[in-house]
């Protein structure tokens, strides 16, 4: 048989039907649902008198609108509350394999709770009305974000209409330096290929540096595949994947576990498989990254400077850079490590898992946030992550360092709840998007790793985590 890429294996094992022009009907194994992109889909289903095809494919939670403090007071914003209550009533009516509502001990960011509950398994197709669904590709799942019409389509038919993507291999070989994390790797990749570099592709991340990452690191990388324009990111199954999934609540058990693992072990690109594009990076030269603009591709190393738009030849790009620098309140050629910050956000589906919190706590331990930092927010990705962090005493380290320890949710990644930047405020953020207004109208976001965010909180400006003893 011809050598296949991992993407081709996942694709061909889910095709139900193909139209003449190649548009395929793809079977969906797991449907993750949250409160923001589902109400119109549930309503559409109801109006058409349709029933969900397979409710035991649905795992739901409320994460985008939920507050991160004073849970005893409920959700204060009436519009947010109505959206969360709408999810409650829709799931009550329709059913689900699992629902982790607001305040449930296993509630959290949808892309954190799927894997930690074993609801994301290799070989699955996973969809969610959320672009960061690419996260789940770390488990060799074909996982991508969909719109609300497609949420309704999946509910009604258990299928999605899709065109086959092209394949790209991003190979990162070599050893990462101390203090350089998965977040720095993925920002460096986006810096290289651009935010549209992966458009039309499914990106498989491979090479020795990717294999050396933990499952959590691989989730961080796949999470931001969409920031490179790719709807799906992928990493092949290996021992780490299997070890991570053992004994998770929805992982298979006994006989079924053995059968599943035997299948999962086939989920890698074959030797000699051909990709439509290959990009190679040397892990050893990647430094801690900080974005300086309003697109994730506008990124530099911590010891570098804000670029000078006058050196850019492409007029559309140059104007984009000029506009970004104006919005960000930065001058060309400013050293990144002299930029002072107002707030710090450690959290989001990119970087809110236990290893992320450990990395930030390691930097914050025995130190205190700088006086100019008004707020350093730590928002765990789920109730389980929060409990684990507290068992390890990470909460006490953060609180002693002047950080705030909050309840789980999406929080200031997109600022749909009360956590946000005020106009002009500058933030070191472990989230995934530095778009204008993303963390609050007029707010200025710099994307960094959890360790770099903690280092910025301590220094009051961007600082090289490698230089902190």
């Amino acid at each position: 048989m011809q050598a296949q890429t991992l993407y081709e294996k996942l694709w061909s094992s889910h095709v139900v039907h193909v139209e003449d022009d190649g548009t395929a009907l793809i079977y969906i194994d797991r449907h993750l649902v949250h409160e923001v992109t589902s109400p119109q889909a549930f309503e559409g289903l109801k109006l058409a008198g349709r029933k969900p095809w397979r409710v035991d494919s649905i795992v739901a939670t409320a994460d985008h609108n939920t507050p991160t403090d004073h849970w005893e007071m409920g959700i204060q914003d009436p519009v947010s509350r109505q959206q969360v209550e709408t999810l409650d009533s829709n799931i009550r009516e329709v059913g689900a394999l699992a629902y982790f509502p607001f305040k449930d001990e296993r509630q959290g960011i949808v892309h954190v709770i799927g894997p930690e509950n074993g609801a994301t398994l290799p070989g699955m197709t996973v969809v969610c009305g959320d672009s960061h669904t690419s996260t789940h590709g770390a488990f060799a799942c074909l996982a991508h974000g969909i719109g609300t019409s497609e949420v309704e389509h999946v509910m009604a038919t258990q299928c999605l209409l899709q065109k086959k993507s092209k394949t790209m291999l991003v190979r990162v070989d070599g050893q990462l330096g101390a203090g350089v994390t998965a977040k720095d790797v993925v920002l460096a990749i986006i810096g290289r290929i651009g935010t549209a570099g992966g458009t039309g592709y499914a990106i498989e991340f491979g090479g020795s540096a990717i294999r050396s990452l933990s499952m959590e690191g691989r989730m961080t990388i796949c999470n931001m595949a969409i920031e490179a324009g790719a709807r799906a990111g992928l990493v092949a199954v290996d021992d780490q994947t299997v070890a991570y999934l053992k004994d998770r609540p929805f992982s298979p058990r006994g006989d079924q576990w053995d059968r599943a693992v035997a299948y999962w072990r086939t989920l890698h690109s074959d030797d000699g498989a051909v990709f439509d594009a290959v990009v190679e990076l040397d892990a050893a030269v990647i430094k801690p990254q900080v974005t300086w603009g309003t697109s994730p591709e506008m990124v530099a190393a911590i010891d570098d400077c804000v670029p000078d738009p006058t050196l850019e030849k492409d007029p559309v790009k140059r104007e984009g850079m000029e506009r970004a620098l104006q919005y960000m309140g930065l001058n060309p050629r400013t050293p990144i490590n002299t930029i002072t910050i107002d707030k710090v956000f450690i959290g989001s589906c990119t970087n809110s898992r236990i290893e992320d919190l450990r990395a930030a706590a390691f930097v914050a331990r025995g130190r205190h946030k700088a006086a100019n930092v008004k707020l350093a927010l730590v928002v765990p990705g789920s109730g389980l992550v929060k409990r684990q962090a507290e068992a390890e005493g990470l909460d006490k380290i953060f609180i002693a360092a002047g950080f705030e320890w909050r309840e789980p949710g999406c929080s200031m990644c997109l600022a749909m709840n009360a956590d946000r930047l005020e106009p002009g405020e500058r933030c070191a953020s472990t989230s995934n998007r530095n778009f204008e207004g993303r963390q609050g109208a007029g707010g200025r976001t710099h994307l960094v790793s959890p360790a770099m965010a903690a280092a910025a909180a301590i220094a009051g400006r961007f600082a090289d985590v490698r230089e902190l003893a």
Partner: protein
Amino acid sequence: MNPFRKLDALVAPMDRANVDTDAIIPKQFLKSIKRSGFGPNLFDEWRYLDVGQPGQDNSGRPRNPDFVLNQARYQGAQILLTRDNFGCGSSREHAPWALEDFGFRVIIGPSFADIFFNNCFKNGLLPIKLDAAEVDALFAQCLGASGYRLNVDLETQTVTRPDGKVIPFSVDPFRRECLLNGWDDIGLTLRHADRIREFEARRRIEQPWLFA
């Protein structure tokens, strides 16, 4: 879904690359549980000088006079001309809902983000990819003449300029068919319900752990 066949309409130029869905419709408006009413908040942060809130009366809000869609010459535009990677970022379908509710039916650019591109077709909105050089020429013409209109024909897959130049564009035959007829995807897919059931039954035997 409203069918789309032909359109002869005014063009508004949005001369920037990487216009993201957070810019198209900011997060506070995503709290709505409805599919309609997003038009007044399309490009809210660029269009108004204050910060908008859901449910607010937008008629008295201060407008940014420099923003392209606030300029008199572009009032009534139904075609948006833009640059690379339009619609990048979040999967929010609220973005095409807002564009459609505002009055746009066609978006022309050199490239689009995948999820956004897909979402447009579900909402009677036609995104057209043209070569960067063609887009450059359209920008030059549009900025150079007030009342600049284009004629878009999905049946013949052409964009016709006022000077008579005809630019062909490609579109997936399946999507074209759906858009021309205003077909509902779900209804089409359910014609294959037996095949889906067969596939599912086989999967249940081969990978029973997926059916907890």
